[in-house]
């Protein structure tokens, strides 16, 4: 992690005399502030401001920089995200800038009535005068600073490294920053802004690109890809490929090296508790419990049965006894005798007796007298059973007539049943015959038979499927990439037909006189509308039955045969519940493969993210060409001291790539040397600190009165001399 925030409050502010300058590196991503002459800035933080609402009190507060994210739980940050004072690399939002400066001076320990120090603050190359003057105004009017100097961060970094012998007095500074990338040529230790070149691409774009790519690749983990996390991923894993095409091919082919270069980020994932197969003892225990329960149930059922048998037998005995007694009783006493027992007549007693006998038989588990036998019997004694049928009506009493009607009805139903049975038997025989024929054919030529069966199965299956498709017609013609389901695709065929009829009807009646109903045919429409398209269902049923038969037959004779998904049970594919696969460890892995070098590649090819400007390597050529003097020796001197600074120069491999790129563009034999700053991130501040500590620094600053007297045109021309 090259970027580390330091926000502890400093306590030694009053130790510094008013002549000591305060040095500020106001970068688009990080803000650094400290004292001139020191080697490290005192306070470093992200150059952002958040204005969330405090959850319990409801007041809007200001939070500058990056803090422990755990503390933000007390604030409602949903309304306002982090905001920056920068548009591209130019400060434009001075309200936010003021919050940032407040925080910075406060953490530096400022406690007087004003900031009574000279200020050196960095700005971008060729900062628009509007931004520069607003910044000066803010510093003078609000903070009451003594004097101000503006400088360019990349230049300070170059000067600092020149002092340490990293680069020469003539050279090119390449500074891929947060939002922009600059190339600044140096001649005799001074930057030549005329030869300057800026592409609007930087670390911000790389992080954003990576963030978007990952969210598109892993839509389920989108919430994981916070800006900070992706920034971390970028710094840890991204690198510049020596040759993009070759590197991409390596990954496309796969293999060991690509695997080695692929990084994997395992998200926290807890495996679901797997169902352990129960142990032997457990199984035995469960079986025993089941057995005991079964035993108890059986015993209960047995007890119930025996008690019922008992009861029935008692009843039977009672009834038999009653009948016996009834036999002994005189004819005229029967009524009085029966009134005591609760039965109406002897017949009733006998009926009850037969019923009880039957129940008893059933309870004891004896087989019922055979149904068929019964029917046979019924058959044989039709004439006995229906004695009144053949008797003419006029010979019968009204009651007998009623009885006759009943008998006729009974006879018809019985006969009907008989016929149905007959038919069943016949069908059974027919099927038997067919199977036998089938079997014979199979035995004749098993191979041919199997083939025939298969083709038959296929034909039938397709037929059934086709019919179903016609009926439901869901999404089969949907080839569009939109994936949306239109209204037409959601309706089945019947509904669609109805819809069509309705619309045509409405459309026809729309114009001219409404004559609907004048003709009889018009009313047919309602019939059509009301009808579901079940008219061909009989055929479908037959086909389906045949399909089932063929399928089962095939299963019998061909062990390799697997029936296609049951056609009758399956719904239209859209409504089917998708098969849910249990989530595995792999579903929680974020794999960084091509992304590792694809994202930083935009520094060299900004058109990959739609920015139509030259990349890093070409920028050097553009910059050299823009220089006023077309001195070949100078160009050679420049390319032999190409210096890289800024956060994005930390990518591994950028030096080699840049060198190769410049070699391609420069004339053959040009000396090329690419170096990286000692510390690409902090050297700008260090250079500025060293510069401000120089005794002649005060000559480069301007005061409040200068600012108001000399006017805007002067401020636009204002430029510090970097060599003191």
């Amino acid at each position: 992690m090259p970027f580390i925030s330091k926000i502890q409050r400093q306590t030694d502010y009053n130790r510094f005399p008013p002549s000591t300058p305060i040095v500020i590196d106001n970068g688009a991503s990080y803000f650094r502030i400290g004292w001139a002459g020191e080697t490290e800035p005192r306070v470093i933080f992200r150059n952002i401001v958040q204005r969330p609402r405090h959850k319990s009190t409801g007041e809007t507060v200001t939070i500058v920089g990056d803090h422990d994210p755990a503390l933000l739980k007390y604030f409602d940050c949903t309304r306002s995200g982090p905001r920056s004072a920068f548009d591209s690399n130019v400060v434009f939002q001075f309200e936010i800038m003021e919050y940032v400066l407040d925080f910075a001076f406060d953490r530096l320990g400022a406690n007087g009535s004003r900031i009574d120090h000279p200020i050196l603050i960095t700005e971008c190359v060729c900062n628009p005068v509007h931004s520069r003057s607003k910044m000066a105004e803010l510093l003078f009017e609000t903070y009451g600073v003594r004097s101000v100097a503006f400088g360019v961060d990349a230049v300070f970094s170059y000067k600092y490294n020149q002092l340490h012998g990293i680069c020469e007095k003539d050279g090119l500074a390449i500074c891929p920053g947060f939002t922009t990338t600059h190339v600044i040529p140096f001649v005799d230790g001074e930057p030549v802004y005329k030869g300057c070149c800026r592409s609007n691409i930087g670390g911000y774009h790389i992080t954003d690109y990576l963030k978007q790519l990952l969210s598109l690749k892993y839509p389920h983990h989108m919430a994981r890809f916070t800006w900070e996390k992706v920034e971390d991923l970028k710094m840890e894993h991204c690198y510049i490929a020596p040759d993009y095409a070759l590197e991409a091919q390596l990954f496309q082919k796969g293999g060991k090296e690509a695997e080695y270069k692929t990084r994997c980020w395992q998200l926290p994932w807890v495996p679901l508790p797997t169902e352990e197969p129960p142990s032997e003892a457990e199984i035995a225990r469960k079986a025993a419990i089941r057995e005991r329960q079964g035993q108890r149930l059986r015993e209960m059922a047995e007890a119930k049965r025996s008690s019922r048998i008992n009861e029935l037998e008692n009843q039977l005995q009672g009834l038999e006894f009653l009948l016996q007694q009834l036999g002994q009783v005189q004819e005229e006493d029967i009524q009085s005798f029966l009134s005591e027992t609760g039965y109406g007549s002897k017949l009733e007693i006998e009926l009850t007796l037969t019923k009880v006998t039957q129940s008893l038989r059933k309870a004891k588990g004896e087989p019922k007298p055979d149904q068929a036998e019964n029917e046979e019997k019924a058959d044989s004694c039709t004439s006995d059973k229906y004695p009144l049928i053949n008797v003419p009506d006029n010979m019968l009493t009204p009651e007998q007539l009623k009885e006759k009607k009943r008998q006729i009805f009974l006879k018809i139903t019985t006969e009907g049943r008989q016929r149905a049975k007959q038919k069943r038997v016949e069908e059974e025989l027919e099927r038997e015959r067919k199977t036998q024929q089938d079997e014979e054919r199979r035995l004749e030529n098993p191979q041919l038979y199997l083939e025939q069966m298969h083709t038959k199965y296929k034909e039938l299956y397709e037929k059934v499927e086709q019919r179903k498709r016609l009926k439901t017609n869901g999404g089969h013609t949907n080839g569009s990439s939109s994936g949306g389901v239109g209204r037409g695709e959601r309706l089945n065929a019947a509904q669609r037909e109805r819809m069509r009829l309705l619309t045509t009807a409405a459309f026809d009646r729309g114009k001219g006189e409404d004559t609907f109903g004048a003709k009889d045919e018009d009313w047919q429409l309602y019939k059509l509308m009301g009808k579901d398209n079940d008219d061909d269902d009989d055929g479908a049923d037959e086909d389906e039955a045949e399909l089932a038969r063929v399928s089962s037959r095939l299963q019998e004779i061909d062990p390799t045969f697997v029936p296609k998904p049951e056609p009758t049970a399956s719904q239209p594919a859209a409504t089917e519940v998708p098969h849910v696969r249990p989530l595995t460890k792999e579903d929680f892995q974020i794999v960084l493969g091509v992304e590792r070098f694809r994202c930083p590649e935009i520094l060299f090819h900004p058109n990959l993210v739609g920015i139509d400007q030259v990349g890093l390597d070409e920028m050097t050529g553009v910059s050299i060409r823009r220089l006023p003097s077309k001195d070949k020796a100078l160009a050679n001197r420049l390319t032999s001291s190409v210096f890289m600074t800024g956060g994005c120069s930390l990518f591994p491999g950028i030096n080699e790539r840049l060198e190769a790129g410049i070699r391609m563009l420069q004339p053959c034999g040009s000396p090329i040397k690419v170096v990286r700053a000692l510390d690409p991130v902090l050297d700008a501040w260090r250079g500025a600190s060293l510069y401000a500590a120089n005794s002649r620094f005060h000559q480069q600053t301007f005061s409040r009165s200068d600012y108001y007297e000399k006017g805007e045109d002067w401020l636009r021309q204002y430029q510090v001399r970097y060599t003191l």
Partner: protein
Amino acid sequence: MEAEVIKAELVLPTHMSFKRIQMYEKYPKGQSKVRWKQLKQILQAEICQNYSPDEPNYVNIESPPSMQPCKRICDITGFEAPYHDPRTNLRYANADVFKLVRSLPNEYVQRYLALRKAAVVLR
């Protein structure tokens, strides 16, 4: 305010002794917000000043478009993309990616296109 928030000095104090004009005086509550000029407007104003074109300024130091042929990479995988799908306008590397491209919902297609600023923007 919670103790740990106060301890971390998370919230910026509204009053600073070292300031001549406080935030609440400069931007009183309830007053309409100051509209800061966006970079575009700032640059527009610069151009209106009619500076000499030889002098470097923010606008003219900008890089020109690249002279190299535009690199075409697969929008999904990042491999070299010899093909282009006329329906979605996405570039793709091979048949497998093409299958994926065709199965992508339109929203994702637009997001992929937006990555290289080629998305259709309806206004």
